[in-house]
């Protein structure tokens, strides 16, 4: 599959301070490749540079150095915008427009006829479930509804690549599930989805490939299956009806035991023989509620990377400072 989004040493630095003498690096020599029909998860804590990358790709900010291409053309090339959709983080739209007017306005920025605009607006109002509020001005919309309008405007031109900046933010569990289903639907339709998030569970459920960013630097990337171990890292047993002392006597020192509400949670090595252990617990009148083999999660991978990359406290991410 061909590369549809690529960056080469893409950097963005801002001048800061009253005299603009300090240089703050927002993104540092980013190299990325996203292939056609992939769901690409762009991960990182707040302030990592995820939105900066997306703004660079949308040509909303100009790079300090390096280059970025979409569909083989520089991002500043206007023609590529016909094939992309973008949902900004915490989207704000024209409050004085109704949802219908807003989508019509954005559709009119493409070469669609009036009839096509009407059809598209109708379709996306239905797809994002805001048909009932079509005449309502956007300032009366809830955050979740605005996010839906935002998704609708990003898809209005039937884009080949969809960039979503924190698409789940502000959504309730139902809304998040709907956005997840929508992203999977987009993949099914052959589109490429590039989305930034810090919700790790979404990444695990959705992504083919991920990249992790921290303090403006790429600290890890690859296919999800390569990054997350498929082997069981440890076993978790949940027991009840037994107190801490009894269970520690029953399992010995091989398990880490912790309280979890009315139950106890035992963490054991993956190769621990389970049958004799379960017998001992049951003999002590305990009740085994669950036995879970635990694999490495995206969360484990993410924290491993972030902790490895941790900069000593108090050290700011300033790459160069002129004397002032």
């Amino acid at each position, binding site marked *: 599959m061909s590369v549809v989004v690529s960056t080469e040493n893409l950097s963005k630095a801002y001048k800061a301070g009253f005299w603009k003498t300090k240089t703050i690096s927002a993104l540092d020599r980013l190299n990325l490749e996203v292939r056609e029909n992939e769901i690409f998860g762009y991960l990182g804590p707040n302030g990592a540079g995820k939105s900066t990358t997306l703004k660079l790709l949308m040509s909303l900010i100009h790079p300090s150095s390096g280059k970025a291409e979409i569909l083989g053309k520089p991002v500043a090339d206007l023609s590529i915008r016909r094939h992309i959709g973008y949902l*900004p983080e915490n*989207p*704000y739209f024209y409050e004085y427009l109704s949802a219908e007017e807003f989508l019509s306005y954005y559709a009119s920025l493409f070469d669609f006829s009036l009839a096509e605009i009407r059809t598209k607006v109708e379709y996306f109002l239905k797809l994002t479930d805001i048909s009932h509020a079509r005449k309502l001005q956007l300032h009366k919309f809830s955050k979740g509804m605005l996010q839906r309008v935002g998704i609708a405007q990003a898809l209005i031109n039937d884009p080949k690549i969809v960039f979503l900046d924190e698409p789940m933010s502000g959504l309730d569990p139902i809304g998040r599930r709907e956005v997840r289903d929508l992203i999977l639907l987009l993949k099914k339709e052959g589109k490429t989805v590039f989305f930034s998030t810090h919700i790790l569970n979404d990444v695990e459920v959705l992504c083919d490939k991920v990249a992790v960013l921290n303090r403006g630097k790429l600290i890890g990337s690859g296919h999800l299956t390569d990054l997350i171990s498929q082997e069981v890292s440890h076993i978790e047993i949940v027991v009840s009806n037994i107190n801490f002392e009894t269970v520690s006597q029953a399992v010995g020192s091989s398990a880490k035991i912790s309280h979890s509400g009315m139950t106890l949670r035992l963490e054991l090595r993956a190769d621990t023989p389970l049958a004799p252990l379960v017998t001992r617990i049951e003999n002590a009148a305990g009740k085994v509620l669950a036995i879970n083999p635990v694999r490495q999660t995206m969360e484990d991978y993410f924290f491993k990377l972030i902790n490895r990359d941790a900069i000593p406290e108090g050290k700011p991410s300033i790459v160069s400072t002129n004397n002032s």
Partner: protein
Amino acid sequence: MIVIPIAKNTFKECVRDKLLYNLVIFGVLIIASSLVLSSITIGEVKQIIVNLGLSTLSVFGTLIAIFIGIQLVFKEIDKKTIYSLLAKPVARHEFILGKYFGLTLTLLVNILVMLLGIYISIFYLRHSFQLADLQILLAAMLILIELMLVIAIALFFSTFSTPVFSALFAFCLYVIGHFSSDIRQYGLSSDSFAIKILSGCLYYLLPNFQNFEIISQTAHGQFLATRLYLLSVLYGLVYSAGLVLLAILVFQRRNFK
């Protein structure tokens, strides 16, 4: 032409702005009050209506041009609506042009509404129209050119400054622009060479709003010479185009953090 939908949306934005409603309603009321004024004043009735009507049109038009103009770009950045808009196939210069023509269209409609008020007032008092009444239309169109220049000034400042400073700069330029000839005369009568040069530079660089002062002549039924009228129109359009171009150049370089 991407400029058209952006201009249409800007027009919609202005029309739904409460500030515009307040100003237009107030303006129409003042024009209507000229009927009362003319009935209690000794003198030419039409003169009073035209003077008051065109002055209202100019003053309120300027207020709209400055106070809505300074927010044209700033609001889009401040409310972050520009993020999703510029991710569409919209070039930055098309965005600026769309905003400019959107507000110009708003002011054109505003002028036409007030102009209608003036003509209704004249007809109400005189029960007839004369060919000379066309002067009012010509004067109103010159006022529109003046307002296009004011919008261009406000738009230019709004590409890099906050609304408060933009309003201040635009208002200062507007006021100074009405005293261009005086600045030049002061310079010419000065003994200092430096002041002569400075006043000359200011005269040629700053917008000369005296070119658009036509209200008094129109009220007195005097036609402005065609050549002078056309030169004033050309001056306004060229100066506005220059400012819009500058606004585009500034806007092209901006980062939307």
